[in-house]
């Protein structure tokens, strides 16, 4: 599987945030989007997810099941967690598992239990998410990644408010996804503990940013 962006330009209001951005992300390889604040990392992730229409250029996903567009084949993890305060951790995940993937009750329960276990939230399964700490909510939001199967993961600053141990859990999950032939594009300031990820550098002058080796 190959996600290819070709001379992508994105405007937000009167300002062109991204201009002529081209990159290729390969299955099994993480692409980390780095750059200073305001460089357009979030805009890029949201454009790939299909929330923002690019002003010019195109994004194509090759080697997928052709019927569905990228939006339906991606997990989008943004700045907000997508967690409902008045539902318990297990209810939150069970909803997303059903909503994003479908399946019967017992299969969903197994997937939810496994995801809660992986993120160390088993003890909080029946605890209202509204009473959790910011980091626990974040973990619950990330647990969504493992209850529904999607080939493309789009992560926008996934490590915000996570402690070191939780960051390690996340990178474990990402490594497993990559090993299974998945594709990860993450906007981050941390290397996420991945081996040899590709980098996409965005700058204010975001001219001809292309994947280049880690300095």
């Amino acid at each position: 599987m190959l996600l290819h962006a070709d001379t992508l330009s994105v405007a937000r209001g009167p300002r062109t945030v991204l201009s002529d951005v081209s990159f290729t992300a390969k299955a099994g390889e993480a692409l980390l989007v780095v750059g200073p604040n305001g460089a357009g990392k979030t805009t890029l992730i949201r454009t790939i997810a299909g929330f923002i229409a690019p002003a010019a250029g195109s994004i194509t996903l090759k080697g997928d099941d052709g019927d569905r567009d990228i939006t339906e084949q991606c997990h989008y993890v943004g700045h907000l967690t997508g967690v409902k305060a008045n539902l318990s951790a297990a209810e939150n995940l069970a909803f997303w598992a059903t909503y994003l993937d479908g399946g019967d009750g017992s299969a969903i329960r197994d997937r939810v239990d496994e995801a809660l276990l992986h993120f160390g939230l088993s003890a909080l399964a029946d605890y209202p998410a509204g009473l959790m700490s910011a980091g626990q909510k974040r973990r619950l939001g990330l647990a969504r990644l493992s209850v529904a199967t999607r080939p493309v993961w789009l992560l926008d600053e996934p490590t915000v408010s996570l402690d070191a141990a939780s960051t390690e859990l996340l990178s474990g999950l990402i490594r497993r996804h990559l090993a299974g032939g998945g594709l990860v594009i993450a906007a981050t300031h941390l290397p996420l503990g991945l081996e040899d990820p590709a980098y996409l550098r965005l700058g204010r002058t975001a001219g001809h940013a292309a994947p280049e080796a880690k300095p």
Partner: protein
Amino acid sequence: MSGFLSLLKRDLTLAVREGAALGTALGFYLVVVAMLPLGLGPDLKLLSRIAPGILWIALLLAALLSLPRLLEADHEDGSLEVMATAPLPLELAVAAKALAHWISTGIPLALAAPVLGLMLNLDIALAPALIATMLAGTPAISFLGSIGAALTLKARRGGLLIALLVLPLYIPTLIFGISALGFAGLGQDGFAASFLILSAISVASVAAAPIAAAAALRLQMS
């Protein structure tokens, strides 16, 4: 379909657990209806004549009160963006949410109407017709309201803006709801015709409003 049902179930669960929305709507309904006789004086004939109109208008305002939360909560915690990546089209997601709003707000308000009607000296024999017209008319309120909720998603203090946007859309529902009750009250033929038009307005809203609301949501998300 499992996505539609799971979203409906989640929204109803949240409506029960949060509770405040229904309590506020019912309380508002009660207060408005209770205050009007105080303003108009104890003329029972006048009150019973204008009771259907008062009950309908107060119901519209009470339902309007809970509309801003229809999509706002999911926008604030990021759920809407995740929903946009689901196999279920956004149109059906909005429909599920509007349906949940109707079940959790529209139906209780419709059922409370005859009780409040007693305060306005409304003929108790009209209660079945009152409940029937309100149950037939309130889906239009929830579904048309979803358009307003989607359009004002990012507006600060969008509540008043929603009222300006959607109250005009409620006029047909109001006209035929009240005319159906008028015919029922006078014992004349014509109830069926008004009732059917009222139902047709609701059916058309259920079919068309989610498309408009989803388009507005996509615009808000970009």
